[in-house]
């Protein structure tokens, strides 16, 4: 807390009172920060490596015991043959191999291309969902009775299974003459708006009561109180919601593609790989791997935007 710090003497802010030690502090702190992020990165990579080792270890165990739990006659929960659990290197080899017999494009390049289509839909969906989410949160905050009455229905909207709803959306929007990516975007937005609404509404309510009372004492209009106190107070919560929404928007886009019937997108590619699973099991794992890595990158981009906004606001 600032209150526990000793008050700097007036003038301390203009010129540092004592000459700083010859080795300036700033670079050292920056170096410590770089060291920390390198360590974090190394830990992340190590966790992935550990997961791959566990995969291969389990597979080796199953091969050795004939898919039985050691020293028992109990079967292992998941079979370990190459059809059920391809080797890590088989998945890598599949990614490096051609996308199809007739193509000279690698499977990785093909999946990345499909993923870029999906991420674009997810980005549109996230933008639309965030806009709708913020709009709803503001509406609910300004008209409390409407907010209380509509909240249960917003919850219901998220409990409807998406696989049931997505085809309906596709039919409606396709029927209106829009291309299929529009339907996918809408489905993505449908999942994305909810965490934004919930977190932004909470943030709008979290305004410091002293700030609100202060605004009343100077006869501020409700709109001024909203814009000068509540909205700034809600920014951190909004970003928490946006990060959750980023994950949801990718899921929404993938599921949307499954229903949309368009030949594009990683969701579509996953479906195709699932059809041909018995012929090339590694392809499905490869597709899921690429899709999830892309999702991580997408969420990281949002997190970076959050850090940028919050740090410019505070410095």
């Amino acid at each position, binding site marked *: 807390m600032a209150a526990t710090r000793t008050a700097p003497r*007036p003038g301390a802010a203009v010129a540092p009172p004592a000459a700083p030690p010859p080795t300036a502090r700033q670079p050292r702190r920056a170096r410590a920060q770089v060291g920390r992020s390198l360590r974090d990165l190394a830990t992340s990579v190590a966790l992935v490596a550990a997961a791959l080792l566990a995969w291969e270890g389990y597979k080796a165990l199953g091969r050795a015991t004939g898919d039985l739990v050691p020293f028992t006659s109990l079967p292992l929960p998941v079979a370990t043959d190459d059809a059920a659990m391809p080797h890590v290197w088989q998945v890598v080899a599949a990614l490096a191999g051609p996308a199809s017999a007739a193509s000279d494009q690698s499977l990785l390049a093909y999946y990345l291309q499909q993923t870029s289509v999906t991420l674009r839909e997810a980005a549109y969906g996230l933008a639309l969902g965030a806009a709708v989410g913020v709009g709803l949160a503001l509406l609910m905050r300004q008209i409390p009775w409407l907010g209380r009455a509509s909240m249960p229905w917003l919850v219901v909207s998220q409990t409807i299974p998406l696989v049931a709803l997505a085809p309906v959306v596709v039919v409606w929007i396709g029927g209106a003459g829009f291309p299929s990516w529009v339907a996918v975007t809408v489905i993505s937005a449908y999942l994305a708006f909810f965490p934004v609404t919930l977190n932004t509404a909470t943030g709008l309510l979290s305004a410091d009561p002293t700030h609100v009372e202060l605004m009343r*004492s100077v006869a501020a209009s409700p709109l001024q109180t909203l814009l000068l106190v509540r909205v*700034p107070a809600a920014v951190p919560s909004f970003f928490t919601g946006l990060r959750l929404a980023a994950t949801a928007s990718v899921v929404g886009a993938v599921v949307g593609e499954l229903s949309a019937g368009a030949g594009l997108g990683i969701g579509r590619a996953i479906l195709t790989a699932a059809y041909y699973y018995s012929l090339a099991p590694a392809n499905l794992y490869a597709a899921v791997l690429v899709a999830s890595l892309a999702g991580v990158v997408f969420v990281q981009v949002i997190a970076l935007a959050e850090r940028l906004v919050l740090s410019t606001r505070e410095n």
Partner: protein
Amino acid sequence: MTGQATTAPSTAIRLAGVSKTFSTSSGDVVALDDIDLDVPEGGFVSLLGPSGCGKSTLLRVIGDLVTPTAGTVEVAGTSAAEARRTRQYGMAFQAPGLMDWRTVRRNIELPLQVQGVGRAERRQRADEMLELVKLTQFADHRPRQLSGGMQQRVAIARALAMQPRVLLMDEPLGALDEMNREHLQRELLRIWRATGTTVVFVTHSIPEAVFLSTEVVVMSPRPGRIASRIPVDLPYPRTDETRLTDEFQAAERHVRERLHAVLEPSTAGL
């Protein structure tokens, strides 16, 4: 409830028969019961009393943040609601309540921004206020880079930014340590004398009330009533030496006796 301009120009605040009852789930609570009070223009009146005596409620009734159940409040010849609408009040609370997403200067500008004052004039007025509370060097700092005492000074500067006729303060020094507290008491007196603002000041500290005020209003709890009004005749400017004088200590003892007289009957009843 219409506040006719019956107030003499020398009276900044006039309360007549003010009562406030809060309805709670466990029944009605009488927070204020039949309060009459005059505060002269340019006066510094402290509301002193134990917790639950309604002093903060009374302050909020004066500032039109709480509507009284009965009685009238006149401020500068009009109703409290009109006074708030025409921005006659500056308020400071126990928590400084500064906004972390604004610089110190922009915090002080906030009331002016609400008022619709232009950017250049806002900045100029904020700079004047910063000079008044001696924080000019910290204009572009963030509130949390400041100590608690400095934050409270910013809050006071913000309260004064609109040049209010009435400054309402709810234990603004309550969270500070003794050293900082006495320092800010001196600062507050200096600012008050420089601006000529009428001050209503809520506190639970006897020495603080005596040191600052032209008049100490002792309140009694359950229901909140005015028990006694004690003028403090110590000359201004008051300094740290003032605290050591016999007159100061006599005044402090007098207020203490009145406050204890308030507390005795209520504890005897338990």
